[in-house]
């Protein structure tokens, strides 16, 4: 490991600029970013795109294979699968993003407080975190979704609560190591209070690993939402989500296999995208990999 002299020290803006350049130089990460961006744009523009109404049923077009008017076919109620896929992207992506945002916005402050303050608060938070880490993610989410009642919002809450301990533990560990740094000691020495230190020094320094973990967790959350919807605990009919489309498709495997191919393919692709992006971010933000 080399030591930095003063001229090499980087400001946070310079650091993020360098990380960004490293990220876009990484072909796999760039591909991930491209996949995620494509799906995000489609989801955002869904109401403006020239596609049929995803809820419009048609008794004359039930389970029709791909054709010019329905490029990837129709479902058991004659609805256009492409339109449902694009609207379903909204449900899947927003479920992934919102549940992770919720987990981060609760987990990061709790983790910083726990790591920085220590004492009995840290003890309690750590024990609870460990207990929940000892539960398989999907089982916690299923149990919560079952008792909260099936809906897209409840499944997001369930996923967020299941992802929460990961963020608390990660932030706490980071906060503990930042706390021991000389600049934090210096800040304490010039009389800064704990709140100022936590917000100005600890918070920015725990962010990079949180960003990496959050990106990877979005991938997990999208699969979790699809799993819950597949089990009937997420998005409720007639609204579309990739998981619920698969749930219906499995009943028509022999008659209409195209119903099952696309939604699962989309989940797969978007999850690959987030995983590639997360791995790329990890490499780009890792100070050890120069």
């Amino acid at each position: 490991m080399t030591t930095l002299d003063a001229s090499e020290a980087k400001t946070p803006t310079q650091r993020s600029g360098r990380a960004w350049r490293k990220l876009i130089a990484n072909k796999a990460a760039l591909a991930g970013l491209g996949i995620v961006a494509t799906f995000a744009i489609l989801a955002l523009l869904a109401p403006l795109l020239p596609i049929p109404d995803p809820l419009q049923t048609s008794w004359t077009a039930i389970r029709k294979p791909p054709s010019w008017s329905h490029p990837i076919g129709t479902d058991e109620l004659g609805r256009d699968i492409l339109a449902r896929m694009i609207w379903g992207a909204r449900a899947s992506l927003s479920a992934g993003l919102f549940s992770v945002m919720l987990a981060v916005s609760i987990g990061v402050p709790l983790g910083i407080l726990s790591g920085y303050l220590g004492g009995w608060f840290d003890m309690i938070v750590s024990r609870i975190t460990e207990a929940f880490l000892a539960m398989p993610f999907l089982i916690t989410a299923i149990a919560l979704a079952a008792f909260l009642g099936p809906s897209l919002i409840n499944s997001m809450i369930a996923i967020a609560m299941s992802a929460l301990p990961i963020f608390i533990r990660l932030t706490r560990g980071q906060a503990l190591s930042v706390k021991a740094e000389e600049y934090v000691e210096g800040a304490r020495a010039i009389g800064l209070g704990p709140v100022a230190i936590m917000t100005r020094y600890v918070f920015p320094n725990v962010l990079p690993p949180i960003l990496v973990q959050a990106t990877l967790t979005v991938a997990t959350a999208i699969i979790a939402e699809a799993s819950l919807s597949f089990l009937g605990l997420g998005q409720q009919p007639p609204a579309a989500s990739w998981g619920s489309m698969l749930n219906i498709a499995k009943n028509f495997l022999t008659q209409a296999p195209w119903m099952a191919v696309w939604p699962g393919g989309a989940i797969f692709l978007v999850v690959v995208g987030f995983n590639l992006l997360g791995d790329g971010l990890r490499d780009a933000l890792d100070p050890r990999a120069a």
Partner: protein
Amino acid sequence: MYVFIVRRLLLAIPTLLIISLFVFSLQKLLPGDPVLVMAGEERDPVLLELLREKYHLNDPIPVQYMAWVGNALRGDLGISLRTNQPVVALIAEKLPVTLQLALMSMSFALFIGIPLGILAAVKKNTFVDYLTSVLALSGLSVPNFWLGIMLILLVSVTLGWLPASGYQPFFVDPLLSLKTMLMPSFVLGNALAASMMRHTRSAMIGVLSSDYVRTARAKGLSERVVILSHGFRNAVLPIVTLSALLFGELLAGAVLTEQIFTIPGFGKLIVDAVFTRDYAVVQGVVLCTAVGFISMNLLADVLYVVLNPRMRASM
């Protein structure tokens, strides 16, 4: 070492207590009076009161919790509303099915993941390495319920090679049992194989660049001996603990796999219970999964110490 194991066992107690508190409070999330759900159509006030009395619902919440934990410790997790059987009996009936699925998936993951991981490490930065890392990424990203559906479509519907669903107890007809479980265990095991492959690769890369491996090569040992006895033997430790940890994940993944292949196991039990609002069963399954998962964590920690001579010496 015994001190370590005992300490580790004692540490599991608060974890279990917190989880039991979580599982208990789940039922408090339910809107309305649980007794009305239990009593079903009959709204006889005498019966309702009787049920309230029986489940300690008139007591303060801490007392209710103590009663619930006390019963759970005596192996009483309540009665299933749907089948009227004790929850423990239901779980005991379904568990072997899921264990068979989990064991087969785990063996599959080990047999695929470890050799490919070693191969990727030995052929680092070659085409083989890239190919295996693409495989690993796909394994980790594919939703297993979709993979299951696609396999049924290809292997059962189109080719007609394997049955699409169902379950045959192993001791009744071993061959048919293995045949029906083949696809489900591939579906459940592939993410695990991917994870195993990644970990084996990175552990092997670390070991292969170490001094004793260079010495072994310098002594003129064959590459096979260097990789397997000097390299892999030292890389195997993190993989053993990983397998124990991933076993818990298997129990969770089984929920979806059993749903697709209609296997009457643990996972199907919880899903059916969720839809019939059979909350005692949901709670029971969650609690048992947590206990299983914690035991596997414990086993992973203990194995790590037992298998690692350096750790053993320092105990």
